[in-house]
């Protein structure tokens, strides 16, 4: 039980970080981005180059990765997303799939299928509920919780942050009060990329190696977590991520021996379907219950 809880929260925190990026971009621009996760992988190559090859401290490598990731996110916003303002968000979402393919192709060119690893910021071990965890893993969970529950109030403090929060509700109305929507857009794409880079940097040491496509696999779960959280809620994204992490850990414990490959995706899909279908059915069921109650009264 303790094992399920610890493993679940650790991977759930990572899903939550990815999901926060999904929500930021969706809130700021109304677009569902599929590429952001892979920006995390690409940034890991940058970190690996700086830390492993150049022998620089972890912090420097991480900062380099962060700057690179934000750069890619902002550049994509400038070159593609901005030109598609007013286009249907589905087209922009498809453009993000294009970016995903592009990044993956470049990664394969650069690294092939060589497995690389980057160490984490804190390698000390702790025992939590009898399970060995690293400081890096704990940091991931704490960061996800802090951002999930703190980012909103942080954004509310500045006028521009308020503009970001309002842009999701009505982008045109935001422009009509004078908030520069293009800056909102660039900021959320940069933030979304940054969250992916942070998640990738914190999750990789626990897994040990990475290869092209690494972060996208986790990002897809984050996408599902964001949808479960309602797509616009920052706390909801983190709660969704933690929930998926816990369900996955439980499934692993009880069905792990079955040797089913890709169990993670089966679990995520089932939870997603239950939530989505439930959301559709619930109002109907409630209405039926209400009419029954009326008849009784």
């Amino acid at each position: 039980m303790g094992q399920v809880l610890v493993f679940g929260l650790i991977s759930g925190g990572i899903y939550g970080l990815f999901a926060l990026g999904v929500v930021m971009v969706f809130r700021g621009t109304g677009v569902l981005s599929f590429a952001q996760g892979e920006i995390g992988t690409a940034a890991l190559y940058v970190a690996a180059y700086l830390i492993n090859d150049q022998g620089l401290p972890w912090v420097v490598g991480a900062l380099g990765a962060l700057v690179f990731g934000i750069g890619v996110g902002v550049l994509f916003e400038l070159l593609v997303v901005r030109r598609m303002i007013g286009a249907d968000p589905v087209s922009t979402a498809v453009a993000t799939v294009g970016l995903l393919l592009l990044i993956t192709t470049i990664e394969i060119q650069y690294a092939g299928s060589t497995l690389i690893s980057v160490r984490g910021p804190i390698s000390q071990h702790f025992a939590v509920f009898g399970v060995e965890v690293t400081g890096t893993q704990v940091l991931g969970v704490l960061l996800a919780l802090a951002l999930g529950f703190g980012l909103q109030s942080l954004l509310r403090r500045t006028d521009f942050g308020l503009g970001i929060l309002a842009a999701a509700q009505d982008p045109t109305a935001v422009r009509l009060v004078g908030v520069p929507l293009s800056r909102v857009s660039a900021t959320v794409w940069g933030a979304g990329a940054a969250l992916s880079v942070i998640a990738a940097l914190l999750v990789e040491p626990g897994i040990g190696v990475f290869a092209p496509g690494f972060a996208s696999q986790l990002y897809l779960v984050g996408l599902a977590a964001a949808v479960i959280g309602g797509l616009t809620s920052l706390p909801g994204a983190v709660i969704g991520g933690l929930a998926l992490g816990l369900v996955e850990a439980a499934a692993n414990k009880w069905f792990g021996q079955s040797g089913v490959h890709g169990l993670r995706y089966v679990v995520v899909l089932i939870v997603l379907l239950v939530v989505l279908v439930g959301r559709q059915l619930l109002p109907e069921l409630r209405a039926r219950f209400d009419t029954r109650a009326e008849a009784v009264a």
Partner: protein
Amino acid sequence: MSTPLLQILDVTAGFGATTVLHGVSIDVPEGSIAGIFGLNGAGKSVTLKTVAGVVPARSGQVLLDGEDITRWGPEKRVARGMGHIPQGRQVFPELTVEENLRLGAYTLRRRDRSRYAASLDAVYDRFPVLRERRSQLAGTMSGGQQASLCVGRALINQPRLVLVDEPSAGLSPVAALELREVLRDVAATGVTMVLVEQNIAFGLSLVDTAHLMQTGTVVHSSPVGDLDDATLATHLGIGSVLGAATSRMLSSRATPEPPKKGKPRVRRTA
């Protein structure tokens, strides 16, 4: 005569293959209220949106204080003194009343933050209900209160020119009358306005000049005093509204407030 504060010069605009505005020209002198009237779909809102910069003008010019702003984005126009009271009272529902106002003052606060406190106070004095409900989420207020917030959010930025689209739509007759008084007060402080209204009686009781639109062109422009029933009937296909403007407004605008969201819950009684 001095240059009008706003000049719309032979503007065309549209969406995709359709052209909606076929050469619209309207002059709005500083300190006046210009009314744009016309049937549903005539292009009134699109005209305001080209002035706002939300819909691009395909040809023609928009001048603000003589300066060509046709290619400016909406944000820059707001920073230069344009304010908006959009159709359908688009307050930010998930922000509080005070956050809505703070966002409304976005460009004022960037220019000179020290003026914000006084400006906020002035809005609260004009709408005491907003002061009372400053921490409430805007989406949970009544339609009339949201209308006040929408006006306050435009005024707090101290605009020179305010574009108002269908302010009376969906309001109770009393709330509509209150709103009219507010708009009158604001105009009396020298703010220039462009007002679009479906409710001709409401609109004519406010504006100085009337511009009648039909399928994307202005078919008649004149001071309100020079309008007669025949002109209105010809261009808008409506009967007599002049003279009885105010009383008709009360009786014909008995539109109920929009229903509250959410289903009424049935309580079980033992």
